[in-house]
């Protein structure tokens, strides 16, 4: 299914310059720039972790906005509309994973309390090589993930400004990069709460308006769309028609462990006041996410029905194209004959979603480059100014590469993003999990495990996307076991086994590292600016006799 060639113009979408939506979207972008400028930062503590000052609901909203990218806002409904029951694997994977993150990792990460995700890998396993692999993976994730966002922004931009796909992608990415290079994490975090409000209001308003005007629903479209399902084409609900049970589980599993390994998600826990805030803000974040994820299937159902009634067949050879699917949320509003300004609002929400997530990803990637690679490995005496410069240069360079790649993306928005998840689930999640929950996991184990994970993922992507022909993947058996979007189901256990096995046959990690891990699990409160390492080195007096 990932091999269908993508045509990049959504035919059914009314693509032309529209004055009111254009003003709305421009105004929104100016607002982001303004907030970013007002909260612009000059020191790295603020750039990376917002001074560790963010509270419960605000961080919850930031988690939501950071999370709900074009993949959620646009891609989710597209996947459900185009691939039916299989699309629900994405709903499940992208929402319920937060629970695993909450019970196993959120508070412990906060206690570990460094700056970036590669920081964790490097410090926990006491290895600059591990830090470098972690940092490169972070940058790779940011890249793959952002390509999906750029595609989403470009497609929606076409509705608002007309023009062609290329111009729109370039324009939108330029705005995102400009705003990020100005504001950094504090500005981005302040913006994320605003972006969340815009995107959720726009999405729900669109859903309610479409449902109400078309007579689908009144007050609870999230439940009322059930009545519509029997009248839709059977592809919409039939289980395992377009994909196997294995692929379904593999996809959901990959997205879940990917959630727990994504650097831009984990860094949100470094920005909060305390570990209790880390926990409750996760609950809030999941609540905010569920608002959208419970609504997306309804939007997909409405959109599918409207498409079938107004445009033509949804499924089959002449059915809905990938580009149309990716804008189905906007398309549904348009097909429901809602006023232009209103459809513009829905489009603006999609752009807000894409910008917020791209911001989070680029910051994670730029801190990986500036903090983890440059400062920790290349130039240990780097000044804050140098770090900021490297960080901003990374943002600009990454922006350019993403823009170029997004001009000819190999898959749907949601699928592109899912690739980043399987990478995170394969390479980073096992390191975070074992690093936090098994004090004997050591450097050699981590290096072996991360290398294994990278190999499995790279092989899956090359096999299924890059070297694949029209006939299918190069090695079909490998694609069956390690599908690119779901490689973590079979792969993550292998990475776990390799990490544990190698750790067992090599030396145990030093006592200092073990004590840091223990501090992550201690219930004792810690100071707001403290990391587990600070506590351990402060208390390194006499090692109290082991009972």
């Amino acid at each position, binding site marked *: 299914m990932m091999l269908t060639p993508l045509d990049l113009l959504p035919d059914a979408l009314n693509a032309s310059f529209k004055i009111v939506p254009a003003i709305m979207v421009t105004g929104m972008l100016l607002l982001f720039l303004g907030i970013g400028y007002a909260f612009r930062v000059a020191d790295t503590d603020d750039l990376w972790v917002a001074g560790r000052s963010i509270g419960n609901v605000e961080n919850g909203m930031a988690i939501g906005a950071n999370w709900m990218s074009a993949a959620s806002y646009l891609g989710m409904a597209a996947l459900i509309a185009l691939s039916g*029951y299989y699309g*629900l*694997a994405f709903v*499940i994977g992208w*929402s*319920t994973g937060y*629970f*695993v993150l*909450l*019970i196993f990792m959120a508070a412990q990460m906060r206690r570990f309390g460094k700056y970036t995700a590669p920081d964790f890998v490097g410090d926990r396993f006491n290895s600059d090589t591990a830090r470098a692999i972690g940092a490169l993976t972070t940058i790779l994730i940011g890249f793959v993930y952002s390509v999906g966002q750029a595609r989403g922004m470009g497609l929606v931009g076409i509705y608002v400004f007309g023009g062609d796909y290329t111009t729109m992608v370039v324009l939108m990415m330029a705005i995102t990069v400009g705003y990020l290079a100005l504001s950094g994490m504090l500005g981005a975090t302040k913006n994320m709460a605003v972006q969340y409000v815009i995107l959720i209001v726009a999405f729900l308003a669109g859903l309610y308006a479409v449902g109400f005007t078309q007579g689908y629903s009144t007050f609870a479209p*999230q439940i009322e769309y*059930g*009545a*519509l*399902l*029997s009248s839709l084409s059977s592809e919409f*609900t039939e*289980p395992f028609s377009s994909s196997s*049970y294995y692929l379904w*589980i593999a996809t*959901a599993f990959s997205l*879940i462990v990917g959630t727990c390994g994504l650097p831009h998600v984990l860094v949100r826990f470094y920005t909060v006041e*305390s*570990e*209790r*805030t880390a*926990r*409750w803000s*996760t*609950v809030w974040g999941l*609540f905010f996410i*569920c608002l959208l*994820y*419970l609504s997306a*299937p309804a939007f997909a159902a409405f959109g599918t029905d409207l498409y079938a009634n107004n445009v033509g067949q949804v499924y089959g050879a002449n059915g809905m194209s990938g580009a149309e699917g990716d804008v189905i949320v906007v398309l549904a509003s348009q097909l429901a004959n809602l006023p232009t300004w209103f459809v513009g609002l829905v489009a603006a929400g999609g752009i807000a979603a894409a910008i917020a997530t791209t911001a989070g990803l680029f910051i994670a990637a730029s801190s990986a480059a500036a903090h983890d690679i440059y400062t920790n490995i290349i130039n240990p005496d780097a000044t804050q100014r140098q770090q900021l410069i490297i960080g901003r240069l990374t943002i600009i360079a990454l922006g350019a590469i993403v823009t170029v790649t997004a001009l000819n993306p190999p898959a749907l928005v949601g699928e592109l993003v899912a690739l980043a998840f399987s990478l995170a689930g394969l390479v980073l999640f096992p390191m975070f999990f074992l690093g*936090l*929950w*098994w*004090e*004997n996991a050591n450097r050699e184990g981590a290096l072996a495990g991360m290398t294994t994970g990278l190999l499995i993922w790279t092989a899956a992507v090359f096999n299924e996307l890059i070297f694949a022909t029209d006939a299918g993947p190069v090695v079909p058996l490998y694609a069956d076991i390690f599908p690119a979007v779901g490689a973590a189901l079979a792969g993550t256990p292998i990475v776990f086994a390799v990490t544990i096995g190698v750790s067992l046959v090599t030396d145990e990690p030093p006592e200092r590292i*073990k*004590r840091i891990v*223990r*501090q*992550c*699990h*201690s*219930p*004792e*409160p*810690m*100071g*707001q600016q*403290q990391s587990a390492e*600070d506590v*351990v080195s*402060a208390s390194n007096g006499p*090692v*109290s006799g082991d*009972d």
Partner: protein
Amino acid sequence: MADNTSRSSERRTDIETDGGVETDGGTVDYLDARVNIFKPSTPFMRDHLKIVWTMFAAWVLIVFGPVTATYLAPDLMTSITVLGFPLHYLLTATGAPLGALVLSFIYARKRDQLDEKYGIDHSTPKTTSDSGAVASDGGSEQ
């Protein structure tokens, strides 16, 4: 630099773990307590992991239960209709995300109660965490 004197001094004495064997008498140095997810080494970790594993099992059931049931009994799951939905669709699209949200809330509540039981207070004022802190905000309404 924050001093960490709050350890052991105000640890409450009422930490009777249920059936625990090595209870350290209420003064645990967590920096000496091994961390292994399958072998909790302190009463706190034991209590915590009990919650974690129970809830994790519930989560697995909610998340992977419906799709597996649909795989095993496709006709049954697709033919039952609730609120217009085929049962498999309702449980997957609505049941699983909502279930995870409810579980998250329950977990955070339980963890707050655990903090209260062990006398942990997160209202650390700025950086200097003094030892006089009392567990006053055990509430969880936010």
